[in-house]
């Protein structure tokens, strides 16, 4: 790593950001609208009197969870769909021909996932302001968790795009892994309200720590110590990144 192709990395990163901005209706507006629909339903159907965490109204409880869930899903979608489409079209070849290392390659794609995650996260947060304004009490913690969550899911997006042989596989990974894990991570409910068995299962779900820690950064109350959540998030993102890097290094499906 003594030489780093900075312009090459930066160009690839810029390309990835540029790509999702070119289709921003789909990549930014759609997830924001989706979350607005959730909020519309929950705010009119569910009584605000029920508190999931002591002293926190339900909508205030819900909004940070929805923000981080949108970040997770969009960070994943960005790298997975971009790389997989490049593989299908064959144009990933042009990057592979360039003097760009595996590390630079991963970093550029994951970096773009982070930008997409933050764009969607901010969009959701601002839009949710129409229903309830939840300013973060610890903005730096919120930012750190948003970034680490995006790194983790952006890396997993790369992993799935490298392993997949058809769009179906990407969709399966998204619908059978990412979505269930993020729904079961305490976005809509407090895990402490679950039966003991499911509470134990949740403790093994890294998404749970991301959601719980992120909520702590907004409302100041959480089930787990925020420091632990941040530590889990960092380890989770590093492991995911290492996995993507390893696959790329092996060449799997990219270099024969």
């Amino acid at each position, binding site marked *: 790593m003594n030489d780093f192709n900075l312009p090459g990395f930066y*160009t690839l990163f810029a390309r990835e950001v540029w790509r999702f901005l070119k289709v921003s209706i789909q990549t930014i507006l759609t997830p924001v609208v989706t979350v607005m629909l959730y909020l519309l339903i929950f705010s009119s159907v569910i009584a605000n009197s029920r508190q999931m965490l002591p002293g926190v109204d339900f909508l205030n409880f819900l909004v940070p969870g929805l923000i981080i869930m949108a970040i997770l899903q969009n960070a994943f979608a960005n790298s997975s769909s971009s790389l997989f489409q490049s593989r299908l079209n064959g144009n990933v*070849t042009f990057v592979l021909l360039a*003097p760009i290392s595996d590390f630079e390659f991963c970093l550029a794609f994951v970096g773009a996932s982070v930008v997409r995650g933050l764009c969607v996260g901010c969009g959701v947060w601002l839009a949710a302001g129409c229903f309830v304004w939840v300013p973060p009490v610890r903005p730096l913690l919120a930012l750190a968790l948003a970034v680490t969550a995006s790194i983790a899911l952006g890396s997993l997006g790369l992993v799935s795009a490298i392993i997949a042989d058809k769009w179906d596989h990407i969709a399966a990974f998204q619908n059978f892994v990412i979505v269930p894990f993020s729904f079961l991570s305490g976005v809509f409910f407090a895990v402490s309200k679950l039966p003991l068995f499911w509470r134990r299962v949740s403790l093994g779900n890294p998404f749970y720590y991301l959601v719980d820690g992120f909520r702590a950064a907004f409302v100041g109350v959480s089930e787990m110590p925020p420091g632990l959540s941040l530590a889990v998030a960092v380890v989770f993102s590093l492991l995911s990144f290492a996995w993507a890097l390893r696959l790329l290094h092996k060449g799997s499906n990219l270099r024969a």
Partner: protein
Amino acid sequence: MAAVKVENLGKDYGSLRALGGVSLEIGEGEFFALLGPNGAGKSTLINILAGLVRPSRGRAAVAGFDVRRQWRKARRSLGVVPQELAYDPFFTVRELLTLQAGYFGCGRPAKKWIDELIGRLGLEEKADTLMNHLSGGMKRRVLVAQALVHRPAVVILDEPTAGVDVALRSRLWVFMRELNRAGHTIILTTHYLEEAENMCRRVAVLNRGRLAALAPLDELLRRYSWRMLHLKLRSGSCGRLPPGLAELVVKTSGPEIVLRLHRDRDPLGGVFEELEAAGVRFSDLRIHEPGLTEVYHELTAEAGS
């Protein structure tokens, strides 16, 4: 220093031996043709040089840089026009070329060169068109431009003229000649043998993953020792052909016969003397000297059997 040097290079896909121990050296500034039937291993060899395929055995270097150990320098020295029509549907031609230049770390200074490439390849009108709105031939032009965007010392074109119209074909070759004269090494694969014959001074023929020939073009042409003599006979001469010559006739159509003559054993002078002695008279004659096509067929058939 060699532009390309491969030593005992091999690639297996499972049990399939795509490339079986190829060694060759291509000098700086050469215009070189890599020929061979479908599946011979041409693209495999090229993709190893480009770092897209990892060799199972042997070594490869571009401009003196090992493609595995000094991959960054090797890739900077190499521009490849891939065989498959791959393109990025999100971007316009100019955006794509700018990105490609950026990957190689030559961003802003490349702008003028990109404009020149767009002009040279006849892409001016399409420069701001999205890639997926281009025709197949236009996409192929963009592939060529992409390969040249970082001014590589070695340029490899893997079937660059498949699906390209006549005008661009000649335009492309003029451009390649110019690059070659400016010192770039050009390596091309093609199934249009006359292209290779017109452009290249040295030729390698691959067959089933092995080198069937590696020689200067004229030497290769000389190796093929047969030529065809077409004679248009006057009426009544046909039956008089002496038995020694009748054996050499490979084709008869109406008054015209074709004799297959060996360059050394059947000198033309001798043939004409024999004809005259036998009273065979003809009204017209044509000699067909062998081209790369004949040599190629012999080489690939020989090695195949």
